[in-house]
Each structure stands twice: as C-alpha cells, then as structure tokens.
C-alpha cells in the first residue's frame, strides 16, 4: 500500500509530495500524521478521497503543534507511544507565522514529536501571499511589485535557529532536491526523545512561477547558491553542513523564477540582488559552506 498518493490533487510538479512520501517511507509507515491547513491538507484530505495510508488528522491552520502534543501525551498515557511517531507536516505560513505559538509551546514542553515544515515560501494555497518565510524581493499578492516596491522587503525568518533556541535535541534544514539527505535527517530525528524540527525546501510551481521541469533544478540551485543552506543541529551543536564546491551567484537561482524576474529590471532590483547575495555570503561564512 502507498503511504501517500497516488491520486492526490497537488499541481503537476509540486515539490512537497516528494518530502511527505519520503518521510513516511523512511519511518516505515509508523506515523500518525498531523497536518495544518494549507495546500497539503487541501490536496490530500478531500472527503471520500483520502490520500493518506497512515492515520491522519487535520484541525486548524494554527494549532498543529498543540494537536501533536496532545496526541503524543495521550499515546504515553495509554502506554502506546512505541507504536508510531507523531509527525507534523505543516506549511511555512502555519509554522513561521500563525502556528508559531503552539509550535513554541510544543518545543518548550519538549513533546516527543517530529515537526516537519514544508517550506514553499508563501501562503500558496490561498494564492501566494507573503509569509515570514518569503525571501526578500519575491513578488507575492501582498508584496506586489510596483513603482515604489520591488516585492517583499525584509528578510526570511530563520526558523531553524528559533527551534535551536528552544533547546530541542534535533533541528535541521533539507531540500526536496536531496531526498536521501532529507530521509536520513527524518530517520535521525526519530532517534531522539523530545521535539525535533526539520524544514524542507519545496518549490511551488504556481507561486514561484516555474514549471515542473524546473522543480528539482530550482531547489538544487537554492542550496548551491548558499541561499538555502542544509544544516543539522544536535542539542544546539552544529553537527553537519552540506559543503559547496563552487558556490554559484544568487542570480542563477533567481532568474529562472517568475516571482523574482522584476529584480532584473526594477529600479531597486539591484539593491535587492545585492541584499540576497549578502545573505548567501553570510550563510557561507556562518556555516562554513565553501568547501
């Protein structure tokens, strides 16, 4: 039996299904899935068209952390916590913004949960509104490009660091371009008792303005430019980083996506491009990305 799909309603070329199936498979299907409102929920939980081969619950946009904490506590009370991993699958809007309170509570109480944020860098299900995971310069419906503004201003929030600051045993970033690395991280996370946070970069074909031909390439370029560093923390210590032999200029990643194309024409585009390159350079410095 399949753990996730086929027959779900994600757009052709959507990135997150690769991660969802990969995570459940590497945990041998021993998963109770908790899902916040968002694209994943909409495409997988239609009435009479459930796509999950594991127990699944969707409650609200903002409370996946609390729901997972409750399930985990109930399993312990019933002495059945050895039967399955409680795994949250939540979008970036749910994680970085509206659900950060319940996620923070979950991590503060150190519930035994693997929290996986699939990061498509905006509120994609409602049509590409900015979240705090949206990178600078991105054109979204709430940061539209116009004469005065070149898309989003302000940085992408560093949620991995926020998880680390809670003192969780394990936190990591990953990408659908490197599915084996992502699966290894999920498996590693499952070895720790307590709250685990994994953030996986997953392109949205419509929101980013790419087609499926570019899904893997674009997510690979995010890593290769240093804009999406793949890092891994255990008990607050940086234990592993994906090194880059030849870090690419950020333009290579940006120029193939519609959400960034104005940066190459807009009056303030150059400024944003420099800001993005600076972010990549800072990541390289901070994590020692350059091999």
């Amino acid at each position, binding site marked *: *039996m*399949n753990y996730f*799909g*086929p*027959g*779900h*309603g*994600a757009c*052709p*070329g*959507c*990135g*997150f*299904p*690769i991660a969802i*199936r*990969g995570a459940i498979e590497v945990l041998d299907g021993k998963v*109770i899935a908790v899902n916040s409102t968002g694209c994943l929920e909409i495409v*997988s*939980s*239609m009435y*009479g*068209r*459930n*796509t*999950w*081969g*594991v*127990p*699944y*619950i*969707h409650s609200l946009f903002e409370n996946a952390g609390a729901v997972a904490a409750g399930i985990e506590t109930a399993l312990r009370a019933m002495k059945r916590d050895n039967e399955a991993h409680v795994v949250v699958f939540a979008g970036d809007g749910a994680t970085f913004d509206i659900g950060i309170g319940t996620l923070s509570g979950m991590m503060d109480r150190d519930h035994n949960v693997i929290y996986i944020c699939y990061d498509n860098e905006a509120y994609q299900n409602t049509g590409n509104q900015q979240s705090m995971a949206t990178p600078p310069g991105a054109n979204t419906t709430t940061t539209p490009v116009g004469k005065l503004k070149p898309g989003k201003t302000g940085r992408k929030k560093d949620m991995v660091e926020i998880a680390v600051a809670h003192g969780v045993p394990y936190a990591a970033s990953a990408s659908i371009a490197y*599915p*084996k690395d992502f699966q290894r991280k999920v498996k590693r996370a499952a070895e720790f008792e307590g709250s685990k946070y994994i953030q996986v970069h997953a392109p949205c074909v419509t929101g980013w303005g790419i*087609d*499926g*031909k570019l*899904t*893997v*390439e674009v997510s690979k370029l995010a890593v290769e430019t240093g804009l999406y560093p793949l890092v891994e923390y255990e008990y607050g210590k940086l234990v592993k980083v994906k090194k880059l032999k030849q870090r690419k200029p950020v333009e290579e990643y940006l120029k193939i996506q519609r959400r960034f194309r104005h940066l190459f024409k807009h009056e303030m585009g150059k400024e944003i491009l420099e800001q993005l390159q600076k972010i990549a350079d800072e990541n390289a410095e901070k994590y020692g990305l350059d091999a």
Partner: protein
Amino acid sequence: MAKMKLYIGASSPAMSSEMKTGDWGTELAYIDKEKCIACGQCITFCPEPATSMVEEGDKKYAVVDHDYCKGCWICFTVCPVDAIEMKTKEIYKVEVC
C-alpha cells in the same frame, strides 16, 4: 435508523487512487525499459507517485502508471540515462495546415 461509519482520528482508508489524475496533463512519461538502469531516481522524485519498479526475469526497470502521471517532467529531469520520453497525448495533437 441509518448508521454512519465514522473513522475516529480522521483516518479512513486511502481512497484517492480512485482519482485518476493521469488525465490532468498534456503529456505522459514513457520509460524505455532497454535504457533504464533501475536506479530508482524517477521513483524517489515522482510526486504522485506514478512510477514503480518491476522485475521481469533478471531484468529490473521502472514503469509509469498513466492513470496517475500528471506529465510534470520531473522524472525526465532526474533520469541519469535519458531513458524517459515525454509524449503529447493524442487529444492534444492538433494539425496545423
């Protein structure tokens, strides 16, 4: 009184395979079993999944279930030996005179 079956914990059997999403795209992926080296990349990356591995004697190769292939081209881009071809569906072939 009519009884309703409720799945506590919102868990019903997976039923989405009844949705034949293979009719969504304009193209379908085809794998040349002679070229395929059974590396599994197209299976790891297919978001649906519509790809799977089959065995025929001592030959192992990947196949695409066209009931679920959305024609996204992802498998085409990750296959290391160019064993995958994308073909336009008959109904989308228009003759231009």
